[in-house]
């Protein structure tokens, strides 16, 4: 079992590895295409600049992108008294600065945390969560999110969700655009090369996702939450309430899925196989052993 410091160091290293892999992938894809079709070598420089800039953006502004993707607005103390004060209290308990807190208008109870480090962290909760849970349950959910922040899980998850998103947008663009009708043969060639590259890199991409969304993170965050609040019962009943609720969070996408406390696409059987979250029954079982 890793201790907290090793966990933090591991997450920082993995984040750096992921960014490097992303930059390497874009540059080598650009290089292969350039040499195969004798395009201008400046394409490679352009690709290098593009991948570096998007990495910097995902690191520096990832939190804001995630927020705007989810239509979140800031939570005021008067209107969301419990949410605000509970976050404040738990930050005192962990000794990290209080994260900024945001609210998503949605009946589906869920929450996530994001941000590159504890100084730039954000916790986001849906109105459904705030309405359906009592103060103790909410406290435990926020404690779970705060543990993600403290462990630097949020940094790695934020980077991955944005870089994977960028990659999928790029691939979409290339495959739709076809670089003009008159050069159909050439664009087909580009597609084939991209396809080959993806095949080569697929295990790597799989590895990246594995690195980021290891299910162990969720168990660890549950355990740290209980260590902080000393109320396993509160977290158990919160998880039960959240997972038995049938409303679906429409603003969540596959890119932001791993950020949430419970999988926002809970009713889909197929996603379960590749799920970013351990089954709820197992999480509750683990918590019940702490009672």
């Amino acid at each position, binding site marked *: 079992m890793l201790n907290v410091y090793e966990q933090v160091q591991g997450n920082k290293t993995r984040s750096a590895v992921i960014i490097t892999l992303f930059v390497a992938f874009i540059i080598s894809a650009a290089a292969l295409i350039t040499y195969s079709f004798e395009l201008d070598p400046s394409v490679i420089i352009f690709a290098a600049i593009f991948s570096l800039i998007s990495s910097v953006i995902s690191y520096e502004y990832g939190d804001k992108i995630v927020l705007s993707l989810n239509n979140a607005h800031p939570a005021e103390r008067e209107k969301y008294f419990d949410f605000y004060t509970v976050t*404040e*209290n738990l930050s005192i308990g962990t000794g990290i600065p209080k994260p900024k807190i945001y609210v998503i208008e949605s009946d589906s109870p869920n929450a996530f945390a994001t941000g590159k480090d504890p100084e730039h962290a954000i916790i986001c909760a849906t109105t459904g969560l705030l309405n359906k849970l009592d103060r103790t349950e909410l406290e435990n959910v926020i404690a779970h999110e705060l543990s993600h922040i403290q462990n630097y899980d949020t940094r790695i998850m934020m980077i991955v969700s944005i870089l994977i998103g960028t990659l999928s947008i790029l691939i979409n663009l290339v495959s739709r655009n076809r670089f003009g009708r008159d050069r159909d043969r050439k664009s087909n060639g580009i597609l084939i090369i991209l396809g080959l590259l993806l095949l080569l890199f697929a295990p790597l991409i799989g590895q990246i996702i594995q690195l980021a969304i290891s299910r162990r993170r969720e168990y660890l965050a549950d355990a740290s939450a209980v260590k902080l609040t000393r109320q396993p019962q509160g977290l158990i009943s919160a998880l039960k309430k959240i997972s038995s609720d049938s409303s679906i969070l429409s603003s969540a996408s596959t890119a932001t899925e791993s950020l949430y406390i419970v999988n926002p696409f809970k009713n889909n059987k197929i996603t379960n196989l590749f799920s970013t979250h351990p089954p709820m029954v197992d999480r509750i079982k683990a918590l019940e052993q702490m009672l």
Partner: protein
Amino acid sequence: MPFLAILAIVALVIVFLISFFNRLRSIQIQIQASIQEIGNQLKRQANLIPNLIESVKGYMKHEKDIFTSLTDARKLVNQAIESNDPTQLNKAQESIGKIIKGLSVIVESNPEIKASQVVGSLMNELRDTADKVTYARRLLIDLSADYNTAISTIPGIWLAPTMGFKPEKGLSVPASGKFLEVSEEEIKEPSVKI
């Protein structure tokens, strides 16, 4: 070659010593900060009480008494913050807790006050501040435990004395004293007038 190896080992040892020292020092600073935090929250609690008294005035028998005990409690809080002594914080917290308990009995037993929105939000604020005190205390306990473990295990037990690190008291309470005894009043069934 052996010279380089020795140099490398010496460098490693120095890096270790520096990081060990820095870690302990930063825990010490965090401990001080958490003591301050407890003090600040107790102060906040004391500041909320007069507002609550204002709302329940008509229902109190000895209004003056509560003001004098509040002044006393405030003095204790200020003393504790100045001396940075956690045991004094305990005392201050106890005296504020007593006042709040008395006030909340009045609130709970009078439906008219309980229904008031102002009183409701004041009670929420007080409860929240109490939570903050709890968490600040918990952080202080955790940090002191980390710190004391680090200086009383190997290699800390060899290094700490030369570096000038002394054990932190944390929130330790004296091993004997009045607080260990249960008073007659506490054994009685609690009576709530409705």
